[in-house]
C-alpha cells in the first residue's frame, strides 16, 4: 500500500521540485529570495541546503534578466524553474515569455526547444494592495506556445509540477498565495498528472461550477451550501486552462443544463469568458439558462479589507449566483 500523507500545497510544490531535482541534474531554480529565505512564503525552504546555491540561485531584483537567462539555459539543455515572486511582476517577464520562450521552437523550425517552468503567484485577499494581488494568468493563456497550469489541491500541485518540469515546452505554473497552507493527501511515490485533463472535484446534477485554483475551494464550499438548499452542484477543475479539457466541461453542462465559471482573474476578457464560450458553443441546446461568469471586479484590487473581500468571488456569491440560475 503506497504511503499517503497530508501535506500543505506549499510542501507539495517543494516536494515535486526536490524530487525532480534529485531525478534530473539539469533542473535548477532561480529567482528572488528563494535560497536562504526560501521565498516570501517559505515554499522553497531547505532546497538550497540540499542542492546548493548553484541550483537554487538567488538573483537580483531583475525579472526580465533572470527569465531571459532561463530561456537561454533551457535552449541549451537545462530545465530551469523560474520563480516570479508575485504574478503581478509578469509585466516584467512578458517579452521573454511571449516573444522568446513561446516562439523559439516555432521560429527555429523545431531545432530549439524551451523546457522551462515559470512559477508565479496569484490571488487576492492577502491585504497586499493593487500591485501584489492580481491574477494575471489569462495573459499567458492568450499566447500560443505557452501552457498554463492552475493547481487547486496539494495532490494536483505535486503531480502537475512534475509534468511541467518534464514538458519540453514552456509552462507557466500559477499558485494561489492563499492556498499554500491548504492541506490534502499527497502520495509519497512518484506520480504525474497529464495536462488537459479536468478533474471532477464533486459530482452533481443541477448546476456545473467550473472553477480554477483557489476558486475550486470556494466552489466546493458553495456546493455544500447549495446541497442544503436542495441544489446538487458539480464542481469541475480544468487544472490546466491551456490545454483545456473542453470535452469534460461540455459533457457536464449537457448533463446539468446550467453553468457557472469562477476564476479569480479579472472577469472582463478573462479565463471565464473563454470557458463560458466553450460551454455555450458545445452545450447550447442543453442550456437552461445563460452561462454565468464570476471573476474579480474590473477595478484595481483594493487594500481595504472589506473592499478587497468584495472584489473577488466568495462561497456566498457563488451560492447566490447558483440559486438564481436554478430559478
Amino acid at each position, binding site marked *: 500500500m503506497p504511503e499517503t500523507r497530508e501535506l500543505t500545497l506549499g510542501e507539495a510544490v517543494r516536494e515535486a521540485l526536490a524530487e525532480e531535482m534529485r531525478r534530473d541534474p539539469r533542473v535548477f531554480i532561480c529567482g528572488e529570495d528563494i535560497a536562504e529565505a526560501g521565498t516570501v512564503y517559505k515554499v522553497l525552504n531547505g532546497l538550497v541546503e540540499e542542492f546548493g546555491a548553484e541550483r537554487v540561485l538567488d538573483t537580483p531584483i531583475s525579472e526580465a534578466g533572470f527569465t531571459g537567462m532561463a530561456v537561454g539555459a533551457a535552449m541549451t539543455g537545462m530545465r530551469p524553474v523560474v520563480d516570479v515572486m508575485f504574478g503581478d511582476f509578469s509585466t516584467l517577464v512578458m517579452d521573454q515569455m511571449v516573444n522568446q520562450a513561446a516562439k523559439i521552437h516555432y521560429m527555429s523550425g523545431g531545432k530549439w526547444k524551451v523546457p522551462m517552468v515559470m512559477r508565479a503567484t496569484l490571488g487576492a485577499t492577502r491585504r497586499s494592495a493593487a500591485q501584489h494581488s492580481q491574477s494575471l494568468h489569462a495573459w499567458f493563456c492568450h499566447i500560443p506556445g505557452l501552457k498554463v497550469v492552475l493547481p487547486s489541491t496539494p495532490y494536483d500541485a505535486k503531480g502537475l509540477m512534475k509534468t511541467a518540469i518534464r514538458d519540453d515546452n514552456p509552462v507557466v505554473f500559477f499558485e494561489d498565495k492563499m492556498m499554500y497552507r491548504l492541506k490534502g493527501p499527497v502520495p509519497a511515490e512518484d506520480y504525474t498528472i497529464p495536462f488537459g485533463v479536468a478533474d471532477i472535484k464533486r459530482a452533481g446534477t443541477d448546476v456545473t461550477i467550473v472553477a480554477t485554483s483557489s476558486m475550486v475551494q470556494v466552489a466546493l464550499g458553495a456546493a455544500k451550501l447549495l446541497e442544503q438548499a436542495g441544489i446538487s452542484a458539480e464542481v469541475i477543475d480544468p487544472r490546466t486552462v491551456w490545454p483545456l479539457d473542453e470535452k469534460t466541461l461540455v459533457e457536464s453542462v449537457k448533463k446539468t*443544463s446550467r453553468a457557472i465559471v469562477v476564476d479569480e482573474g479579472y472577469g472582463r476578457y478573462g479565463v471565464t469568458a473563454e470557458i463560458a464560450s466553450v460551454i455555450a458553443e458545445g452545450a*447550447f*441546446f*442543453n*442550456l*437552461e*439558462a445563460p452561462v454565468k461568469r464570476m471573476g474579480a471586479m474590473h477595478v484595481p484590487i483594493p487594500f481595504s479589507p472589506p473592499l478587497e473581500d468584495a472584489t473577488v468571488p466568495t462561497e456566498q456569491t457563488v451560492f447566490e449566483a447558483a440559486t*438564481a*440560475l*436554478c*430559478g
Partner: protein
Amino acid sequence: MPALEMAQETGKIVSWLKQEGDAVSKGEPLLEIETDKAVVEIEATADGVLAGVKSREGDVVPVGVTIAWILAPGEQPPVESSISAPSARKVTGQPQAPSATPAPAQTIAPAEGGARISPKARRLAKERGVDINRIRGTGADGAITSEDVLAAAETPPLSAAPAQAAAALSAIARLMAERTTQSWTQVPHFYLVREVDAGALLQAREELAPAIERERGVKITHTDLLVALTARVLRKHPKMNASWAGNAIQLNPQVNMSVAMAVPDGVVGAVIPNADGAALGDIALQRRDLTERARSGRLRPADLAAGTFTISNLGMYGVDAFNAIIAPPQAASLAVGRIAERVVAVNGQPGVRPMMTVTLSGDHRVVDGAQGAVFLNDLAEAIRAPGETLRS
C-alpha cells in the same frame, strides 16, 4: 399572403377551401383569410393544381410571404432553402415585415417581450411539437424551462371536439364571437338612455325625401338621417369620436360612421367615411350600396375599416330600446330603438307624440357619463331640429 388593406401587416389563414393537390380554376374560392377587420375569401389567381401549402389554418402570416403555389401541369414548386412562412408561430408585438432576406426558419429568438425560453427548452419543444405559447414558465424571471416543456408535452391541448364545433361556425360568426367577447370582457361599458321626440325627424324625412329620390334615386331612411345628424354632432364632441389606443386616447380627425348591418351569419359595421360633411343623399346612397353588398356577402375589408363611431338601429324590428356592445377601438356606440307613438306630457297636458329611445354605450376609459350626457343632449337637440343641423 395578399394585402387586402393599406395598413395590413399580417393575415390569418381561416380555412383552406382547397386541399394540397386539388385542381383549381381561376376565380374559384381558394381560402379564407382574416384581417383584423374582416374575413375575406381569396380566389385562385390562375388555373392549376394547388401545391406546396406552407401555412396551415390558424397561422398568422406576414403580407407578401408565399403561402402556397398554383402549378401548371408539369411544374414543381421552387426549392427554397430558407424561405418559409413562420408557420404556427403566433405573431406577438410587431409583426414581421416581409423581408428580402428572410430569417432562417426556427432559429429566431422570441421578439422582445415575447416568452423567455431556454435553448434546451426550445429544442425540446421543437422535438416534441409543443406550442411554447401555451406554456407558463416557472424558471428564473418566468423563463420557460425544459421541465415546463416536458410537463406541457404530457398535457395535450383540449381535445378536437370543441375545435370541430368552432370550425362548424362560419368565419363571420366566429369573428363576431371573438370581437364581441373581446369588447365585452375588456371594455368597461356604461350606458346612458334618453327618450327623444322624433316628430321633427319624421317631418324632415317627409320633406327631404322626394327631392333626394328625384335627384339621387335613393329613398332616405331614418337611419340615414340619424347618421347625418349624429356625425354632425360628433364634430363638436371629439372624445365621443375618439379611439382607445391601449394606454392613450387618440382623437380621430375624421368622423367615419359605422352602421351596424345584419348579414346572414351575424352583424358587421359598414363604414360611411366623413359622414359629418356628407350630404344626406350621399349618405343614403352609400348606406344602400353597403346594405346590398352586406346581404350578398360582397363587402370588402375597406368597407369595414376605420369606423370611429357606430350606430345600430333595431327600430325596424320593433325593439323599443337596447344596449349595444362597443366595437373597439371606438369609444362609443348609439343604439336606436323604434319610433312609436306614446302618451307624453306636452306643454303640461297629455299628448300623443312619436317617441324614440336612444341608448349611448361608452367606453369609460375614454369618455364618462357627464361627457356622454352632454353629447346626448346635443344629439336630442339635433333630432328636434334636423333641418338646422343638416345645414350646419
